[in-house]
């Protein structure tokens, strides 16, 4: 556990050292992402009324929450650090450490969360003053606490869903396109682009069974009081089950991959 937190601490310090670059990207990315979603919502509600089960303010709050929440879930997203280590041969030194390579990489992802958490506080502080709590939304200390639990599981699930794709680096020289594909699918089926309740009714069962909902939409629905305690427990159970499935797939790929790993850069 000490090694885990040491790795997390080193990564957190590293992230905080690139301040100008980091903050310029963070601010522009947040403002742009929210800006596009904001105008889409305004255009959708141009005729007034409700869209699905959302009021205009409710949907705006949903997008603010999901954009901020997705930063916690994704953390060191699209950095294909594991794939790079395999491809460049840097995995070799980790194999000598008396610790699990994947656990150390997850510690790095946790460390990368520190500047993200600062962002969330700074970027999210204005929300209660501008949007308030729209009708039909019930944010309470209990839903906030439940949301934190869902976000923690979502962060792990995101790491686990990316892991098998990164391990493809044992065979392929370049698997970044797989991770981009993962990002596209996860954003869409995870409710980051549009609330999942706006999807057709025939797709709802599949959306609930797939892992993507538990990455983004589920923690936000929990925060906004749109999930009952029973649904919350069931949702967490599905997410943990998916973590287990992806861990099993990753272990199988890891076993086969390390058999042919040469350690000198693939």
């Amino acid at each position: 556990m000490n090694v885990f937190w040491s790795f997390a601490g080193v990564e957190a310090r590293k992230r905080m050292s690139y301040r100008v670059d980091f903050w310029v990207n963070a601010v522009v990315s947040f403002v742009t992402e929210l800006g596009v979603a904001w105008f889409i919502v305004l255009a959708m509600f141009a005729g007034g009324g409700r869209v699905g089960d959302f009021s205009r303010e409710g949907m705006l709050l949903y997008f603010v929450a999901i954009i901020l929440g997705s930063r916690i879930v994704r953390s060191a997203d699209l950095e294909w650090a594991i794939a790079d280590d395999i491809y460049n041969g840097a995995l070799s030194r980790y194999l000598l450490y008396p610790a699990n390579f994947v656990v150390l990489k997850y510690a790095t992802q946790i460390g990368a969360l520190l500047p993200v958490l600062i962002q969330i506080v700074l970027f999210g502080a204005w929300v209660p003053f501008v949007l308030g709590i729209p009708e039909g939304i019930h944010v309470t200390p209990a839903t906030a606490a439940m949301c934190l639990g869902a976000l923690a599981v979502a962060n792990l699930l995101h790491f686990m869903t990316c892991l098998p794709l990164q391990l493809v680096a044992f065979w392929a020289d370049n698997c970044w396109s797989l991770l981009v594909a993962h990002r596209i699918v996860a954003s869409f089926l995870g409710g980051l682009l549009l609330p999942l309740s706006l999807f057709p009714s025939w797709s709802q069962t599949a959306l609930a069974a797939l892992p993507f909902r538990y990455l983004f939409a589920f923690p936000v629905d929990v925060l906004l009081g749109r999930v009952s305690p029973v649904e919350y427990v069931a949702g967490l159970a599905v997410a943990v089950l998916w973590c287990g499935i992806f861990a099993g797939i990753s272990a199988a790929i890891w076993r086969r991959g390390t058999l042919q790993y040469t350690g000198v850069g693939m």
Partner: protein
Amino acid sequence: MIRYLRLYGYFLRFSVSRAMEFRFDFFFRIGMDMLWYAHHLAFFWLLYRHTPLLGGWNLDQLLVFSGGMFLVDAIQMTMTANNTWMLPIYVNKGDPDYYLVRPVSSLFFLSLRDFAANSFINFLMAVGLFAWALARYPGPLGAGAIAMYVGLLLLGTLLHWSLHMIFILPVFWLHTSGGLREVFWSLDRYTQRPHGIFTGWVRRVLVSLLPFALIVSYPTTALFNGLTWTLFLHIAGAAAAAFLVLVWIWKRGLRVYASASS
């Protein structure tokens, strides 16, 4: 000009043969782009289940807009994306040395040397989707109007590439891993939405200072509403201005470029 075309022919031959050596990546990237097209179409299809108009456009018009966007994206993915991705790495490693001593434009060489053969498959798909969106459009669209639309989209592609490079070239001064590339990718989201949804100062910025709305949205507006001289000059002027700014920054960047120590 003939010399540059011949040189580009060599780039193509080399890129295609290299792409075939890395077969995994070849198919991964095709799959990735297919997913990107599919998710984009599904996103708008879902939106239009809940609203008849978005920024003044109906679903048929939005599909034509999407087709245009796929085309612009496919051209840049095929011709320039690999190069823009590698450029900051080259600058930080001192690789431009090899190109600066050659008797051709270093900007031409470093911008176009890697042709993405796998994305060319996606380019063909994008052309298919573009043709499908135009064919299913219920209104009258003449061959002349479509040719004009394609021409404006090519100008939009030039504008898009120039803006992309303008955000990458600060790497000469910043020495970061990608210049301001992440900032560009964030702002590029505005290219992927019809400009009609934006209002107020955001809309004004998107057609002037950061002209992302001119890349696909304005050409699509010209297709539906007719091309005026004002609109043409606006798009062409922005593309030319962005290209000139890019060339200016490139020259300034080369002046401060200090080889491998950059």
